[in-house]
């Protein structure tokens, strides 16, 4: 039933449609990529499903030229930033047409064109790197900011504390975003610290810090917009703990025995994709039929990307040494 509720929603039709499309693309991309695991896709495969409202809200609240850096759970964020399903899927397949030429794989998406500074595999490493990226923006005198993403598990690495201190000391334009999906592999936040309210971490450095509901793009968008304004005004970093949930295991090999089915089901009830879809339908911005057409179009994009990935070549064997150094003629030890 399409009712005219338009006025009660805080953002425009275009905004909701764009969030929905972004989240749907992320969701279907990973669902379909999952079916290729063990076939074209191997190695570690960390799924973002459940967390899509975080990436959607961040990307709508910042500029596409603001550098962004994250961990290995990077597919959703890459797509939200506008990297194509083709280049992402091809990367998962290890193909030369992938966003990292097939050299990075699932954990190491990169795109200079999209100011996407990577997918990093060492937990917490991207926290100081993010501050460094922000340092460079400030040094160059731009008004860009860096979006620096990490997990609740990563928030316990010592590097975070060193980085928060320096970022505040030097007022670096960086939004530190902890995607608190409640678990680091099998370890719940409660089991990692005496301080389970992650937003409090920033307070020791007097960094503006806030806890945000990550199960809808609106609240993420609002919090990130405020943070961005603060950063761009030269006032230094902001720390956002965005509360979210991953529906799947840590990676494909994780059976997830550390949490209950009921807990997962409760979060699925709050599914951001469904929630936004319902809002769009209720506001009569799209009919169910139009939603279906949109779904079909996204699904086709994904199917095409799998075809593209399958048809693409692996990197040439001569690529083995390429990109190790800046020099093309670097004298590698051949034996």
């Amino acid at each position, binding site marked *: 039933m399409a009712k005219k509720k338009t006025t009660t929603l805080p953002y425009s039709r275009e905004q909701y449609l764009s969030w929905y499309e972004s989240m749907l693309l992320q969701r279907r991309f990973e669902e379909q990529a999952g079916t290729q695991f063990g076939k074209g896709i191997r190695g570690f495969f960390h799924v973002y499903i459940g967390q899509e409202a975080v990436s959607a809200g961040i990307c709508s609240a910042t500029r596409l030229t603001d550098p962004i850096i994250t961990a290995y759970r990077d597919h959703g964020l890459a797509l939200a930033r506008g990297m194509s399903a083709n280049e992402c899927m091809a990367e998962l397949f*290890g193909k030369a047409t992938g966003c990292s030429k097939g050299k990075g794989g699932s954990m190491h998406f990169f795109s200079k064109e999209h100011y996407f500074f990577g997918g990093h595999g060492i937990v917490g490493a991207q926290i100081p790197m993010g501050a460094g990226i922000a340092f460079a923006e400030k040094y160059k005198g731009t008004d860009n900011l860096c979006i620096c993403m990490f997990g609740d598990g990563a928030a*316990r690495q010592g590097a975070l504390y060193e980085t928060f201190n320096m970022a505040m000391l030097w007022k670096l334009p960086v939004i530190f975003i902890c995607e608190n999906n409640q678990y680091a592999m099998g370890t719940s936040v409660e089991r990692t610290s005496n301080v389970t309210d992650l937003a409090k971490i920033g307070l020791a450095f007097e960094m503006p810090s806030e806890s945000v509901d990550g199960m809808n793009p609106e609240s993420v968008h609002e919090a990130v917009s405020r943070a961005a304004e603060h950063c761009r005004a030269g006032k230094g970093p902001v720390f956002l703990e965005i509360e979210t949930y991953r529906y799947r295991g840590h990676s494909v090999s994780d059976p997830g025995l550390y949490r209950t089915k009921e807990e997962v089901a409760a979060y699925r009830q709050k599914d951001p994709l469904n929630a936004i879809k319902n809002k769009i339908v209720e506001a009569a911005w799209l009919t169910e039929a139009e939603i279906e057409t949109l779904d079909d179009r996204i699904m086709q994009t994904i199917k095409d990307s799998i075809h593209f990935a399958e048809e693409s070549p692996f990197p040439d064997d001569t690529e083995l040494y390429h990109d190790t150094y800046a020099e093309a003629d670097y004298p590698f*030890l051949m034996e």
Partner: protein
Amino acid sequence: MRLITLRDALREAMTEEMRRDPRVFLMGEEVAEYNGAYKVSKGMLAEFGSQRVIDTPITELGFAGIGVGAAMNGLRPIIEFMTWNFSILAWDQIINSAAKVRSMSGGQFGCPIVFRGPSGVAGQLGAQHSQSFESWLANTPGIKVISTATPYDAKGLLKSAIRDENPIMFMESEVEYGVEGDVPEEEYLIPIGKADVKRQGTDVTLVTFNKMVKVALSAAKTLAEEGIEAEVIDLRTIRPMDYDTLIESVKKTNRMVVVEESWPFASVATEITYQIQRRAFDYMDAPVIRVMGADTSVSYAPNLVSAFLPNPTRIIKAVKEVMYLKK
């Protein structure tokens, strides 16, 4: 004898030593409630409780240092790194603390600690998850380095490592955890610093360690079909290195090929080659050749992983080269 997997052998070693010595405890990420990221410590929390099987936050530098302090103060920690790739965060504590407290304190304080976990390439895991650090760590005086992937060797050596008075780096293999091997029911120890001749041969010595032993044995099998008998030596311990066994072997074969999955520059193979030319020059009929991981980062694409790693074909080619055989 009975067949058990590498992960079971490692668990038996830790469990037996923890029953024997209350000072021994296990600490690391996901070792307790999750039963280990690779299930090596499965069931240990249930047996020993959370006082002795301890989950940590993701804080390698911190918990490595806590291990070092505890070792200096009378305990015997086993610190698990989920993989050795992540240990790099903890190298300050390993190299600046663990390796040096004995000498800095004039022998007053020791550091009997075992750092353990899987090392090396484990399929398509990309550049940051595919590294080996034997040569890096063995470069440092004050620590011992063990790298082994067979259940029998791993169990006997891990037990010795836990009883040793020094900091020990113990490297295993993710892809071998589920592979079975013969392990006796009764207790045994394997001395640190002793290589093992995995195959007798007279024509060429193949020196290697960890999961490359299998690759070398496979090459040796093919070579035997062509009438070439390769002796395959599994180093098992990298530091201290069992040079005597290597020299004994080349006195017989007069030729050596070293196989190592890591990078060539300043590698374990580099060290062996120096010692052989210095101590056994007169016995050698050909220069030592090494078959190494490629001098580059490990990429994700499957063909680039294969191109990176040593394989039987490359080993056979190297053997024929030291034997001055055509092709």
